[in-house]
């Protein structure tokens, strides 16, 4: 991971700046006006009830949805104002700087683990295959899956598939990692392995925006927790505040409900 490791130290430059992000599907306004800042090396956890728009935020940042309004700036290099329809090039530029880890992994079933990982680096970024393979193998080793390089996804457990999903994202050398409930499709006993990997990435200084329902994990890893409901940010702040002593009643209800489901 050596050359993909982000520079330690410079922890204040924003890697992601989102202002006034708005998105509707038909006449259903899903995101009303979202502001977000993620600084270099920071981990921001996005929490909120089902349907509150968390996935939609990530999809807008990765160019899978086109917002109706707002600006997104990544790494101070790309700034897209969605007041006007973005060009393909603008969406591609956004996408190039972030990488997404999906809830359902979305690995390519017809390609082996190694092929899955080098697909982006070789086919899109035009890096040399040998170099991409070497990097992929070292990343696979880091998540304990070096021996699975020639397996097909169906031969792996959910936890292993998700770790491959994470490596596939890392191999793109993004500035920002986006996770959409990376463990919610997993059997409970497999969740830990994946969270451990994400925690290690946080310790290495990767910049991450993570949608999650794992509050204990968020508290341990995140620098900031953002609680969304109904397409707006209801509360944001230090994990201990938002998760332990929230100021807003809605946040309190949501957190209580997750901690005591019965």
């Amino acid at each position, binding site marked *: 991971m050596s050359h993909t490791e982000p520079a330690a130290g410079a922890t204040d430059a924003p890697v992601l700046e989102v202002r006034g992000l708005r998105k509707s599907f038909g006449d259903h306004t899903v995101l009303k006006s979202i502001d977000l800042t993620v600084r270099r090396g920071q981990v921001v956890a996005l929490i909120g009830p089902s349907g509150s728009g968390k996935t939609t935020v990530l999809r807008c940042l*990765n*160019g*899978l949805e086109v917002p109706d309004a707002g600006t997104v700036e990544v790494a101070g290099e790309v700034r897209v104002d969605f007041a006007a329809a973005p060009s393909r090039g603008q969406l*591609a530029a956004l*996408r*190039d700087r972030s*990488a*997404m880890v*999906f809830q*359902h992994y*979305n*690995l*390519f*079933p*017809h*390609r082996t683990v190694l092929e899955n990982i080098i*697909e*982006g680096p070789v*086919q*899109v*970024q035009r890096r040399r295959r040998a170099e991409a393979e070497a990097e992929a193998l070292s990343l696979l080793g880091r998540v304990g899956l070096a021996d699975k390089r020639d397996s*097909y*996804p*169906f031969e792996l457990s959910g936890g292993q598939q998700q770790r491959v999903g994470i490596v*596939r994202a890392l191999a*793109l050398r993004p500035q920002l990692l986006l996770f959409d409930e990376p463990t919610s499709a997993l059997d409970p006993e497999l969740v830990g392995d994946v969270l451990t990997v994400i925690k290690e990435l946080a310790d290495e200084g990767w910049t991450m925006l993570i949608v999650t329902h794992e509050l204990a994990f968020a508290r341990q890893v995140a620098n900031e927790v953002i609680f969304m409901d109904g397409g707006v940010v209801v509360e944001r702040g230090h994990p201990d505040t938002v998760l332990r002593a929230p100021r807003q009643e809605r946040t309190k209800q949501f957190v209580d409900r997750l901690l005591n489901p019965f």
Partner: protein
Amino acid sequence: MSVNWDLVWSSLGPMLIGAIQGTIPLALASFVLGLVLALAVALMRLSRYRVVAAIARAYVSIIRGTPLLVQLFVIFYGLPSIGVTISPWPSAIIAFSLNVGGYAAEVIRAAILSVPKGQWEAGHTIGMSRRQTLVRVILPQAARVSVPPLSNTFISLVKDTSLASLILVTELFRQAQQVAAFSQEFMLLYLEAAVIYWIICLVLSSGQSLLEKRLGRYVAH
């Protein structure tokens, strides 16, 4: 009733020549051209431009809504009356390719739609263009799903090439007809032709199984 084995034996040569020089190349050429056409038509059907999709839909509807024999006759016997004369072989290949194009387009379209949306999205998030995602992610998965129905299309096509005898293409069935007319042994020779068609189709079916196995190596059984 005794079987005239000498006739079976002596007619085998002309019939096999008909199969090897007529039926099989006719089916292969038409299938390959038809598949290329079908892929184009399937992609047109999925286009966001409505006119393009409508043209493709009309084409599929006409091909599937009219008899193959009529299509063949329009091309070979009909076109000359508007000044376009095409000889038997090209006529047959054109008619059969157009026909395969219509049927296989629907198979390919359904196969493309059967690939989960998450696969398109995974392609996009690693930076692939639509075209790259289609070629490297979607079509390989669609191909696996398409093999059984496309094999059926091909096997039907092999049998349908017998219609080309009606526009004077020398293939297996026309050879059988000629020997039968000469010897008056209709039952024997048409049964012999049937057996040869059947054997060709058996070989194709086992080819289909092999292909399914090979393309299915990445799915759980």
